[in-house]
């Protein structure tokens, strides 16, 4: 027997692809993940909803409790608070409970389809202890960076609201004076100087024209011919012809005088027009001098715009914010759209959505039933009900507009957002009665107006880029209060007397035109009342100041205007006199020549 020969080569170890012993730990990890999900899914969903909601709305979204029941397909949210994106210490709404029935299958496509939401105990405008704004800076100006689309829309609507030129109601303070009236800024003085120069040049031109008539030789020649005719015999044909030629020359000279007379008349009319222009310029100077007086504006529409435009613009700005936000989140059409991605430690990037025809939208709320309270802090809060249907991230896929409505004894509201077609149309309306309206400071005046309990109406229509909106406020319990900064000066007391007795308030603001450049019109019942009272109380002072302004203007322009006026009058007199004198001499000479010619050509028996 021979021993087997040892193998000269060692077999290479077989390469294992799978690490089977790791299956156990991996399964353990999966089980741990499942348990963690079971334990913390509600918490994670609550945090996620708060984070996404805050990013979407530009204001803090807080949830006390959220429970997901995937088996039953419902989500229950309790203690929902959404802060106002516009006001620091106010909530947009609070809800006691929201119960949502959701479709579970679309969740696998990351699509949230809510068949029905029942919302109970909704309250609006409740106070909060901390600033809940995210899109706005703490001071309420500009946009908070990183606030996503909500921040951009908030900044845009703020810029939009700033474009309106709101007049300032300036009331005269202290002594009225026009010391700052600068003669160089008066238009009458340069106009008078120009008119004087024109009169000088016309005078020279006329003198040249009179000299150019060359009447002297014509008159001398005609006079000599006349003398000849007196001594000539009837058979002296040459003298007869000479007489006829002399008459013709006199007639032509008369024609030249007539032409000059027409030119003079035109020039004189022009100078008289210049004198009228001086009067117009003086009236403009009166207005300019009056503008330097800082007199109170007594124009009624100006008063309304100055007093109420800032307050009336706020509801427009807020509704526009929500409408523009809806347009960003619910755009028409089926093209891919990029939105800011979810917040995380790393850069958020952009989430691009790819809607597809006949597919489900990314988000859809088919219907919601709302039960809410108005005036929740009062002794008897009023309970109302409302409905909402068709809120979708892809209206073109859902195919129907969003419709919302709510009503009650003194309350009616409706909203209709149609983003189904290419041009979105957003319409909303609200009537709210018996609710105490917030007090506000009157811009430019040390006054505060508390409208009291009244009725508010708001209508809003944004059709493509055209806006039509109306805000109306009516109250019979308006109360005015003096600000601590109000002085005890006469003028302050006069203002206070003018407004303090006015308790009825009817205000209407209208906005119309292209969204980029809309027209704002504000009117109220206080327009005429305040204007009339202001006129009455400051009328004498205004009249005296205006008189003073006119006198100052007159004093400044008199030394320029009066010489020009005299120069024009003198020139007119001189020119007319010269022409009349020349014309009289020519006429007399022509008459004598013609008479002598008639005598000369008469037959002997006729003499």
């Amino acid at each position, binding site marked *: 027997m021979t021993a087997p020969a040892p193998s000269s080569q060692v077999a290479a170890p077989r*390469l*294992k*692809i*799978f*690490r089977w012993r*790791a*299956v156990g*730990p*991996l399964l353990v990890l999966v089980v741990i993940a499942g348990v963690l999900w079971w334990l913390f899914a509600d918490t994670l969903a609550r945090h996620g909803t708060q984070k996404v909601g805050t990013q979407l709305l530009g204001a803090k979204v807080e949830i006390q409790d959220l429970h997901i029941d995937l088996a039953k397909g419902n989500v229950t949210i309790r203690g929902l608070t959404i802060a106002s994106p516009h006001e620091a210490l106010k909530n947009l709404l609070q809800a006691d409970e929201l119960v949502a029935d959701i479709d579970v299958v679309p969740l*696998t*496509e*990351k*699509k949230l389809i809510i068949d029905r939401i029942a919302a109970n105990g909704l309250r609006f405008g409740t106070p909060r202890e901390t600033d809940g704004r995210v899109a706005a800076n703490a001071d309420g100006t500009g946009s908070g960076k990183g606030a996503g689309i909500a921040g951009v829309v908030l900044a845009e609507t703020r810029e939009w609201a700033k474009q309106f030129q709101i007049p300032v109601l300036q009331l005269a303070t202290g002594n009225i004076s026009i010391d700052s009236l600068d003669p160089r800024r008066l238009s009458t003085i340069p106009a008078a100087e120009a008119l004087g120069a024109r009169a000088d040049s016309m005078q020279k031109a006329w003198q040249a024209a009179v000299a150019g008539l060359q009447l002297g030789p014509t008159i001398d020649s005609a006079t000599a011919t006349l003398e000849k005719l007196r001594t000539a015999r009837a058979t002296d044909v040459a003298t007869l012809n000479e007489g006829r030629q002399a008459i013709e020359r006199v007639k032509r000279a008369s024609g030249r005088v007539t032409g000059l007379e027409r030119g003079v008349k035109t020039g004189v009319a022009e100078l008289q027009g210049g004198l009228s222009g001086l009067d117009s310029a003086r009236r403009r100077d009166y207005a300019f001098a009056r503008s330097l007086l800082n007199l109170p504006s007594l124009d009624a529409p100006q008063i309304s715009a100055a007093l109420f435009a800032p307050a009336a613009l706020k509801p427009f700005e807020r509704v526009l914010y929500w409408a523009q936000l809806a347009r960003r989140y619910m755009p028409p059409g089926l093209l*891919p759209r*990029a939105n800011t*991605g*979810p917040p*995380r430690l*790393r*850069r*958020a*990037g*952009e*989430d*691009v*959505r*790819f*809607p*597809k025809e006949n*597919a489900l939208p990314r988000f859809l709320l088919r219907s919601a039933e709302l039960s809410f309270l108005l005036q929740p802090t009062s002794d008897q809060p009023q309970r109302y009900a409302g409905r909402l249907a068709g809120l979708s991230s892809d209206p073109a896929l859902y195919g129907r507009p969003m419709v919302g409505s709510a009503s009650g004894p003194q309350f009616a509201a409706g909203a209709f957002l149609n983003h189904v077609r290419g041009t979105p149309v957003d319409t909303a309306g609200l009537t709210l009665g018996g609710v105490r309206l917030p007090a506000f400071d009157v811009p430019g005046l040390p006054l505060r107006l508390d409208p009291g309990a009244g009725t508010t109406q708001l209508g809003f229509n944004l059709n493509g880029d055209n806006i039509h909106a109306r805000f109306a406020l009516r109250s019979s319990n308006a109360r005015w209060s003096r600000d601590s900064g109000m002085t005890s000066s006469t003028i302050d007391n006069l203002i206070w007397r003018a407004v303090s007795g006015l308790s009825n308030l009817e205000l209407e603001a209208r906005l119309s035109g292209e969204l980029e450049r809309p027209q704002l019109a504000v009117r109220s019942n206080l327009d005429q009342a305040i204007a009339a009272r202001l006129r009455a109380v400051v009328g004498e002072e205004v009249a005296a100041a205006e008189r003073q302004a006119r006198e100052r203007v007159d004093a400044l322009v008199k030394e320029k205007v009066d010489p020009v006026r005299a120069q024009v009058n003198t020139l007119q007199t001189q020119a007319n006199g010269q022409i009349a004198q020349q014309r009289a001499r020519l006429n007399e000479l022509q008459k004598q020549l013609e008479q002598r010619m008639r005598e000369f050509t008469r037959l002997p028996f006729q003499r």
Partner: protein
Amino acid sequence: VLTLVKLIQSLFGALHSEGTPGQLAAGIAFGSILGLTPLVNIHNAVVFAALMLLNVSFAGGMLAWALFVPIGFLLDPLFDWIGHGLLLAPSLRGLWTALYNMPIVPLTNFNNTIVLGSLVFALALLLPLFFTTRWAVTRYRATVGERVRQSKFYKAVMASKAYNVYKMFKP
């Protein structure tokens, strides 16, 4: 400090493990995906499972994950640009629309510019990183590897308890 020690342990452990350079390089390549792309995404669960189940260097994967996280943060603007270009390319719109409206696929967040951009970048880097790392490990072991193994520093590092945890998943 503990994290740094563990990283160094992982690095030396992986370099001097019984695993082949290819296994180590594959682990590092998979780990780079974890580090470069945003972590909480379904594709990373798949990559993590692959790191555990496939016979590649798990330590290399963890090491690469830790090393590539800061690189991922730095390159986010590039990823955003890549993702934006891909997602909004008209020629790819049909593909993305189909994927977006499929079950499960949207849960990968592929429609996020950072996620898609970083994943495409990481996949493009996968093979170059694998081959480069495999070559580098081979060279290391052939040149200075044995001297490092005999050094006091290496012995001190490997004496730590954390090394025992590593050994559980060594290739």
